[in-house]
């Protein structure tokens, strides 16, 4: 009898835990659900009182509004989409290449000074990137890069977090694997490209996702390094939409724009979630 009771209590507790967690998920998902539902609302539902959480008659009108209404202003909205996609993809590709190559050296070559370089990288993890924004701006403007794609790409390539992540993963790769490749006569370049990168798919998947998401959502650098309308990225454009005149008239377009900005990071994460979990195990700081 008592045994049964204990079993029942444990099961009940478990059920309670699930219920609580699901309720919590519902609560945290609310803003996102609201955002999605608003993006598909027709105009009359956008200004309903009392406001309705879910959309009644879903429509794509807001998306057309977004693409056409902003057409009459200086720059078509598609330009912001292109800017954001191009910049994020370029940063991801360059950062993956540069940081992996550097991490390979720090992890397996260990030339003199590697320890010091890694210590500097480790300490660079410890400050907000905004701290270096002013001199970075001065450097970018001295190089004549203000208002170019380079200004938004180059400063984001050599990221301490990325090289740290790759190095921690490379450290787990047994040296025997590299020695075997050496014996097979592969060049260092080939070893890096064909051996190291091939076995560290989870690591570079993680790097791709974090870098893409971070830069896709980055608002600060576009704000600082660009002055013309045509160089703005999506988050900045959305902010202009939200803050400019005629906000009420554009609130449908705004909701649609928000939806468009939020979608890619979620999709990318969904695609690579499994791979990330395998990498994050190695990313703790061991001192």
């Amino acid at each position: 009898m008592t045994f049964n009771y204990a079993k029942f209590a444990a099961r009940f507790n478990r059920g309670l835990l699930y219920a609580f967690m699901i309720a919590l998920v519902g609560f945290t998902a609310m803003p996102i659900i609201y955002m999605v539902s608003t993006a598909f609302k027709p105009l009359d539902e956008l200004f309903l009182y009392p406001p309705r959480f879910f959309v009644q008659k879903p429509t794509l009108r807001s998306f057309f509004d977004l693409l056409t209404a902003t057409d009459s202003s200086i720059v078509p909205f598609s330009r912001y989409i292109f800017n954001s996609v191009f910049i994020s993809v370029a940063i991801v590709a360059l950062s993956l290449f540069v940081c992996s190559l550097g991490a390979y050296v720090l992890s397996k070559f260990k030339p003199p000074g590697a320890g010091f370089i890694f210590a500097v990288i480790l300490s660079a993890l410890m400050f907000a990137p905004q701290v270096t924004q002013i001199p970075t701006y001065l450097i970018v403007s001295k190089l004549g890069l203000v208002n170019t794609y380079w200004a938004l790409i180059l400063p984001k390539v050599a990221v301490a977090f990325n090289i740290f992540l790759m190095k921690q993963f490379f450290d787990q790769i047994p040296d025997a694997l590299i020695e075997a490749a050496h014996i097979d006569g592969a060049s260092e370049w080939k070893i890096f490209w064909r051996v190291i990168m091939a076995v560290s798919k989870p690591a570079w998947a993680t790097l791709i996702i974090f870098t893409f998401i971070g830069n896709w959502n980055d608002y600060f650098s576009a704000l600082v390094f660009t002055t013309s309308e045509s160089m703005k990225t999506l988050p900045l454009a959305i902010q202009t939409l939200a803050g400019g005149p005629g906000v009420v008239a554009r609130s449908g377009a705004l909701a649609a724009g928000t939806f468009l900005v939020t979608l890619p990071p979620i999709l990318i994460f969904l695609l690579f979630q499994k791979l990330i979990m395998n990498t994050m195990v190695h990313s703790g700081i061991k001192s």
Partner: protein
Amino acid sequence: MQSSVEVNSPLQLKSQKVSRFKLSQAGKKAALGYLFLSPFLILFIVFTVVPVVQSIYLSFTYYNMLQPAKWIGLSNYSVLFLEDDIFIKSLKNTFIFAVIAGPLSYCLSFLLAWVINTLRAKMLFSLAFYVPSITSGIALSVVWLYIFSGDRYGLLNNWMLSWGMISEPILWTTDPDTIMPVIIIVSLWMSMGTGFLVFLAGLQNVSPELYEAGSIDGISSRFQELWFITLPMMKPQLLFGAVNSIVAAFGVFDIAVAIAGMPSPNYAGHTIISHLFDYAFIRFELGYASSIAVFLFFVTFGLGRIVMKLLSSKDQ
């Protein structure tokens, strides 16, 4: 087939070379290493190391980009701490934010990761909590401004009015008293990010045998398990998460701007970074702004060091 033929002959050549030039081989390897490292090093030095050094230099000068920087010693710092009331206000706001949101988001991330790790459908739950952190704070401000809207149409006001909790709508994002709480709530919602994922992964990494051994040694409750086995095993991840949340807490800016605007009413949502941004890119007083940056740099760096000391896994 062709490659296997090619591979054989260089191997023999190489082995001869190795015996003849042993020293230069090591030198060659180092040189190649530096060559591979150079793209990273160049960009890292140009865009991270040099800016930090230059920030420190500029903080001792008056510089407005038009005239050359003029050395003025410590006067930026004395103005900053003794005369600039708005900076003190932003300092207070940032510290309140950091002290509340930092530890809270850290503990919440860990607690949620710990609970999720015992559940089924781990992936689904972790996705649900992680997604808010990968959405753009700026873009979602539209949603927040609706939820916290100050009129009767705002979602929160609407609910609270209809439930009879309040009789007048609350001006959530314009009343200086409620701006900070709203910023903290929104940040907490978005904070189950990188740290949360690291914790989840770390928890999966603790081997089940340790728990079995623990139960033989007399560990009975889940909380004892957590305290004596899980936490010590996860020190590297805990450290990483702590450094991450310190940096994030002191770097609060875009959510504050998205919610309260800039400048915010009565500077209630003004943070250190807002102040830095204001002086650097609106007033172009770059020397003064640099002193703010340097101050922030030393605060986060110092806290990071302290956390590293506390959680260092050296004693293991």
